[in-house]
C-alpha cells in the first residue's frame, strides 16, 4: 500500500510561498501610477519602496541572501546589500512590466521571441509540448506572446489565498488566454495534463519549484549545492512522448524582454518510474537555469532556501 499523494497532499513540503510582498493598497497605488504616469513613474516610486524593504526589513533581505550567497560567494556587507537592492528592484520592475502589458497593452513593451521556429517544429511532431520555465525574468511576458503557437496553452499554477498580484490579463480585463490547471485538483492535475498533451496542446510548468511533497522531486546540483526540483513533468513527457522546451525570459532593456528556448530536453518513452530515472533530465533543466544565472544574475527570483529542502528527502 502507499500513502500520501505527492502532489495532492496538503503541500506541507513546499518551502516557498507565492504570496505577494506588500499590501493591497500598495499594489493598487502602483497600478494607478502605471495607468496615469506610465512605466517610468512607477519605476521611480519603486526604487524608494525597495530601499525601505531592503534596508529596514532584514527578513526580506535574508530571503534574497540564500541565492545571492551562492551566486556571489565571498561578498559581504555592503556589497550584499547592494545586490539585494538590485535583485528586488528587478523583481519589482518585472511585476510592473507585467502590469504594464495588461494595463497599457503589449505594445508598450518590446518582446523579442528567439527561436520561435524551434517551438513550432516541436509542435509539428504532434505530441504536444511541455514548456518548462522558471521564476526568472518575467515569465508572464512569455504567456502573453504564445499566441503564435496557434494551439491552446495550459498553465500548471497554484495560486495562493492572499496573493494580491494581478496577472496581465486581469489588468487588461480580458478572459484568461490560457487554461489554468490547479495542482491541487483531481490527481494533482496529472490526468488533465496527459489529456492536453494527447490533443497536441501545450502545457507550461515551472521547473524550479516543487508543488507538493518531496516524493515528486529529484535531487540535483544547482549553484554548488543540492536542490529539489520536480520531475513529474518529465515523467508525463515520457508517458506521452512529448518534448520539453526550456523557455526562459530576461529583461534586455528598460522596455524590452527576450524570450529564448534555452534547450530542448527529450525524455524517452518508458524512461522509468522513480526519481533516479528522471534526475538526469531534471539536471539538464538545472544546468540551463545555472547558465541563466551566470548571464542574468539579478533576474533570478526564488526567495527561499532552495538548498535546504534536499536534506528532508534523505
Amino acid at each position, binding site marked *: 500500500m*502507499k500513502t500520501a499523494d505527492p502532489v495532492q497532499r496538503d503541500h506541507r513540503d513546499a518551502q516557498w510561498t507565492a504570496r505577494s510582498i506588500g499590501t493591497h493598497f500598495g499594489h493598487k497605488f502602483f497600478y494607478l501610477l502605471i495607468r496615469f504616469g506610465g512605466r517610468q513613474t512607477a519605476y521611480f516610486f519603486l526604487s524608494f519602496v525597495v530601499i525601505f524593504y531592503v534596508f529596514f526589513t532584514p527578513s526580506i533581505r535574508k530571503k534574497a541572501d540564500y541565492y545571492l550567497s551562492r551566486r556571489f560567494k565571498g561578498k559581504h556587507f555592503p556589497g550584499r546589500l547592494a545586490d539585494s537592492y538590485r535583485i528586488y528592484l528587478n523583481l519589482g520592475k518585472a511585476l510592473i512590466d507585467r502590469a504594464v502589458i495588461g494595463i497599457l497593452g503589449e505594445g508598450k513593451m518590446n518582446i523579442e521571441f528567439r527561436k520561435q521556429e524551434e517551438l513550432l517544429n516541436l509542435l509539428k511532431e504532434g505530441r504536444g509540448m511541455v514548456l518548462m520555465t522558471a521564476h526568472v525574468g518575467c515569465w508572464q511576458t512569455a504567456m502573453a506572446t504564445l499566441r503564435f503557437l496557434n494551439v491552446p496553452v495550459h498553465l500548471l499554477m497554484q495560486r495562493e489565498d492572499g496573493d494580491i498580484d494581478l496577472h496581465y490579463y486581469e489588468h487588461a480585463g480580458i478572459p484568461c488566454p490560457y487554461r489554468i490547471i490547479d495542482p491541487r485538483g483531481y490527481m494533482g492535475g*496529472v490526468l488533465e495534463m496527459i489529456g492536453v498533451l494527447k490533443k497536441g496542446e501545450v502545457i507550461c510548468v515551472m521547473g524550479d519549484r516543487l508543488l507538493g511533497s518531496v516524493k515528486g522531486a529529484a535531487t540535483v546540483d544547482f549553484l554548488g549545492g543540492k536542490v529539489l526540483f520536480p520531475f513529474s513533468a518529465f515523467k508525463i513527457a515520457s508517458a506521452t512522448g512529448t518534448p520539453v522546451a526550456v523557455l526562459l525570459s530576461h529583461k534586455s532593456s528598460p522596455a524590452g524582454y527576450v524570450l529564448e528556448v534555452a534547450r530542448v530536453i527529450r525524455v524517452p518513452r518508458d524512461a522509468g518510474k522513480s526519481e533516479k530515472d528522471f534526475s538526469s533530465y531534471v539536471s539538464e533543466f538545472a544546468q540551463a537555469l545555472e547558465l541563466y544565472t551566470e548571464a542574468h544574475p539579478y533576474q533570478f527570483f526564488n526567495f527561499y532556501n532552495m538548498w535546504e529542502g534536499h536534506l528532508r528527502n534523505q
Partner: protein
Amino acid sequence: MTIKEKLKKLLIEELNLEDVTPEEIEDDAPLFGEGLGLDSLDAVELVVLLEKHFGVEVKDLDEGRSAFQSINTLVAYIEERST
C-alpha cells in the same frame, strides 16, 4: 488469466506495491487515496500500463476520472475500449 487478474498483477509489479497480493486488492476499493493508496505519480504509470498492456488510451480527464475509481471500473473501461 482474466483481465481483472492480469490488471491486479500488473498493478503490483509496475507500481511497486509492497506487501500486497492480487487477492488482497478489493475490486471495489478506491485505487487512489484511501484504499490502495495510489498517488498522482502512479496515475501516470497507470496510463502507461493501460496503453502498454491493454492497448487502451486514456484521452482525457473525464475518462480517467471515471475509469480510475476502482479495479472494477478499470476493468469495465478496458473491456469497453478493447471490443
